[in-house]
């Protein structure tokens, strides 16, 4: 039966949403990881005030490592449950990539919306431009989700998966992390930031999506 790509993506998205609602383990771990890290940072700072730049860098480091533990689950769970074969028989590669990727993006963005306010409250940081912070979070978490989905598919069958994603992800994600930190620092300090940083992030997100889409076919159709 031939289904349109949109329908297929939607089906994979729904499947992912259903599974993650049923077993809350994957996103609960991400959330707790983030809360543990940021309370750790906050405790160790003992009430000292961070400069906007440092606060922004710290926030993105926390987001990077905590969201990473969720972003890598995309295919690792399928592999563990033994459902990868069925998925590869029934799903077209593009549907699987985009269904999983978009769901992951939504999940990571939602989680970041829970994590960031806690960070802001604990560290006592004012936000001058909420909209810009939103945009930076959206562009950042989307990139992380897309790269994470492709890279977690690469890691299927690897011997030592713990920590591997961080190693693979960091060089790929640097063009997103660096502008994200500058934008966030601007939001924290109230100084004007060039919007070209955001455009750069979006451009990189677009290129990464295109590349993931082109490369994923090679991974899916194994001979």
């Amino acid at each position: 039966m031939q289904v349109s790509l949109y329908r297929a993506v939607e089906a994979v998205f729904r499947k992912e949403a259903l599974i993650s609602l049923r077993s809350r383990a994957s996103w609960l771990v991400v959330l707790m990881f983030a809360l543990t890290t940021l309370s750790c940072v906050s405790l160790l700072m003992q009430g000292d005030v961070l400069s906007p730049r440092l606060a922004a860098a710290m926030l993105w480091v926390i987001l990077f490592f905590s969201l990473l533990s969720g972003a890598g689950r995309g295919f690792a769970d399928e592999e563990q449950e033994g459902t990868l074969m069925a998925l590869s028989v029934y799903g077209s590669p593009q549907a699987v990539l985009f269904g999983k990727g978009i769901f992951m993006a939504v999940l990571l963005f939602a989680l970041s919306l829970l994590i960031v306010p806690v960070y802001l409250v604990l560290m006592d940081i004012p936000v001058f431009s909420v909209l810009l912070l939103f945009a930076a979070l959206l562009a950042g978490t989307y990139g992380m989700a897309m790269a994470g989905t492709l890279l977690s598919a690469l890691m299927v069958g690897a011997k030592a998966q713990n920590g591997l994603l961080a190693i693979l992800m960091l060089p790929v994600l640097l063009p997103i992390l660096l502008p994200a930190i500058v934008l966030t620092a601007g939001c924290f300090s109230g100084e004007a930031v060039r919007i070209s940083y955001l455009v750069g992030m979006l451009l990189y997100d677009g290129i990464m999506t295109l590349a993931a889409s082109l490369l994923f076919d090679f991974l899916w159709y194994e001979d």
Partner: protein
Amino acid sequence: MKSCEKGLWLFILLLTAGLFYAVFFFVPPAEGLGSLVRIAFFHIPVAWGSVIAFLVGAWYALRYLRRPGKRFDAISAESARLGLIFVVLATLSGAVFSKLTWGAYWNWDPRQTTIFVLLLIYAAYLTLRSVITDERRRARVSAIYALFSFLTVPFLIFIIPRFYFSLHPSPVLNGSGSIEMDPVMLRVLLLSLLDVTLIYIALLGHRVKEVHHHET
């Protein structure tokens, strides 16, 4: 074939010896840098080698994906191994130069950052290769990673200089299109680039042949 390889190595040996002599006895001390400029004749060529190895690795990764063959995978992997060595040498020699001229081994200069990212990519690529046991899957997966990480490079080249202030001397081929260098220095530098490229080609050929030999 065998004598051709020997000839290449002999040529490389003579060229390298000649370059050593030229760098220490012909090249005049540079304005402001004095004799420290001699490090550049090692540093620039190895940095060049690491970039060439990266490009070759990505190109053969692409060729592997289009038409899977063990040889393409071997070239891509061996190129990354050589690239890692080059990039480590470039980073270390750069750090020494940085310490002697600017007083610190490391200060996240744009070029230091870019080369560091290249180092991270090489390390990640080789780590990925080491954790996948199935040969064909390893080849495919690492080719995909090589191409995916290749994307970041143009972005970093444009983005990073906006983030960090640079003390690094402007590239020999700079934006203005003019070459501001002592003619003797320039010739020696170009020859040393040729030397490193030849060393890279010779080592790559040797390593790929060894892998092939080992498998058959």
